[in-house]
């Protein structure tokens, strides 16, 4: 039970990172982006490549930082991967979403995102193979925190949680303390009025993709670090991340953070009563529950 709670928080931090970007893009561009979770895969694989590169350039970089399995090269790779994934999110928007947007149909965007997800996922599979990969082949033993109740935690998991919280805190500072943060919130509130006040809307869209992609990359790397990397990573996480945004209320960044943790906790706690095979269905149950109890989520506003 305690183990499920702790695991839930850890998974939750990853979902939160993914959900922040999704909720921002969904709010601003008004479409359910089914390809967002593929950004996590891009991030995870990009970091895998950079990690290998750095390790090859300087062997010292490939040394693990005890007690983690995380290496210095992977830390550097994480930062590069965040930038690259952000850029690829911008590129996808330029190549596909922006043009579909220009043709009208909000709903065509949803379907376009289906197509984009399909393309990204399978190209990753073609490049890196369908078998799961790991950042480190070393076996990192979990630390027994307590025997009664039994609780195991891997050092990497603690690092992931701390790093995710740190990233979210930085984002919070940016949103609440900088002009950019104000403009972002203004655009989310009322795009037309924001434009009248001299905010460049298309630049904000680019920035949102950059941030969303960056956060997704971090989530993907953390997921890879605590689980494994595979081409179906995006497919497996798309529903939990959507659930997180719906729990928090579409458009609410803080809601997405909270939603991520709630979905992570609920999915792991559900394992106490349900066989693990059913866990992919849990996010759907959460979505249903939210739609029945509070259709606009915890912090969402009523808007159709």
């Amino acid at each position, binding site marked *: 039970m305690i183990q499920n709670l702790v695991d839930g928080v850890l998974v939750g931090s990853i979902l939160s990172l993914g959900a922040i970007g999704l909720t921002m893009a969904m709010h601003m561009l008004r479409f359910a982006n089914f390809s967002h979770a593929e950004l996590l895969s891009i991030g995870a694989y990009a970091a895998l490549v950079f990690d290998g590169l750095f390790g090859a350039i300087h062997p010292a970089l490939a040394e693990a930082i005890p007690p983690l399995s995380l290496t210095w090269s992977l830390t550097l790779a994480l930062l590069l991967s965040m930038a690259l994934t952000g850029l690829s999110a911008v590129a996808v928007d330029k190549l596909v979403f922006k043009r579909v947007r220009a043709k009208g149909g909000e709903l065509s965007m*949803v379907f376009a995102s289906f197509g*984009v997800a399909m393309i990204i996922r399978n190209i990753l599979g073609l490049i890196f193979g369908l078998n799961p990969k790991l950042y480190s082949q070393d076996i990192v033993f979990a630390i027994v925190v307590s025997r009664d109740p039994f609780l195991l935690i891997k050092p990497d998991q603690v690092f992931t949680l701390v790093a995710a919280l740190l990233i979210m805190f930085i984002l919070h500072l940016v949103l609440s303390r900088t002009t950019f943060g104000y403009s972002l919130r203004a655009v989310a509130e009322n795009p037309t009025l924001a434009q009248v006040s001299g905010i460049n809307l298309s630049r904000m869209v680019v920035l949102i993709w950059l941030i969303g992609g960056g956060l997704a990359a971090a989530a993907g790397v953390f997921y890879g670090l605590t689980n494994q990397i595979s081409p179906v990573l995006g497919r497996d996480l798309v529903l939990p991340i959507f659930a997180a945004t719906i729990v928090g209320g579409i458009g609410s960044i803080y809601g997405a953070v909270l939603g991520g943790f709630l979905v992570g906790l609920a999915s792991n706690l559900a394992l106490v009563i349900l066989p693990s095979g059913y866990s992919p269905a849990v996010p759907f149950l959460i979505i249903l529950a939210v*739609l029945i109890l509070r259709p606009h989520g915890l912090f969402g506003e009523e808007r159709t």
Partner: protein
Amino acid sequence: MIGVISYLVFFATVASILSIAVLGLNLQWGNTGLFNGGVVAFFGAGAYGTLILGGTPQAGQLGGFGLPYLLALLGGMVCAGIVAWIVGLLTIRLRHDYLAIATFGVAVAFETVMRNTDALGGAQGIRGFERPLRETLGNGFTYNLAFFAFVLILLIATYLFLERLIQSPFGRLLRAIREDETAAQSLGKSPSRVRLTSFVAGSVIMGLAGGLYATFYAFISPQDVLPILTFQIWAMLIVGGAGNNKGAVMGTFLIWAAWTASGWALSRFAPLEVQLYTGSIQFVLIGFVIVGMLLWRPQGLFPEKLVVSQSAKNK
């Protein structure tokens, strides 16, 4: 020669079954503007419903009620309708993303539940279904031909039903709501109720397709209700032309032919190590077809014929 003909019958049967599903989606998306991201859930509900209601009893499995075939097929359609009604009731009033996400979710949940619940066949799927009239028609070519005729009749019936429906006042109402919800509401119409009706009706049609599919193979398993099927059905509609029933059917035959042909070509000509990735290559190709269509010809190969008003049409 008989081999070719029998393959063509096989191909046409599957394509016709899928056409029915695409027609159902066309009612939801093309005529009403509802995004259904989980077509397989309704297709699957019809398939599982039909086999459970019409099958013979199996140890440890729910069902085997052995209902007469047409009743079982109808029961499968009702199952699909019930699932659609529950999902629709919860989401149809909200902004459109919710329906997209919830339907996507119901498909994931459906597959998960079917895969893990042994009473519903589990990963092995549901067996022990006797195809109707098998004793009279045998198992061979005659049966397949007769079944194809049956599917074709149902496809034509569905087509005519939907054509009549969209010409009817209800069809006009659907388009009115799709184009301008507020205007429709100001005329005293209830958009959410009409949309729910259309959503459930479309899903029942998908359930019919699922029931036929399961009958054709006398078997259904979670492997048949993977998300890729949703995607294929969507691709068929987008390529054919949303809003146009003729386009929907044409798109289905076109995409299904391209899909089977590319699969065949890859297995025939590609080197062995590439063949492992046949699925991935096909998915990438179909992904590009979709995105390309949306970018360059969003109205599809056979665009919807827009009618400005009845009086303009009669002029």
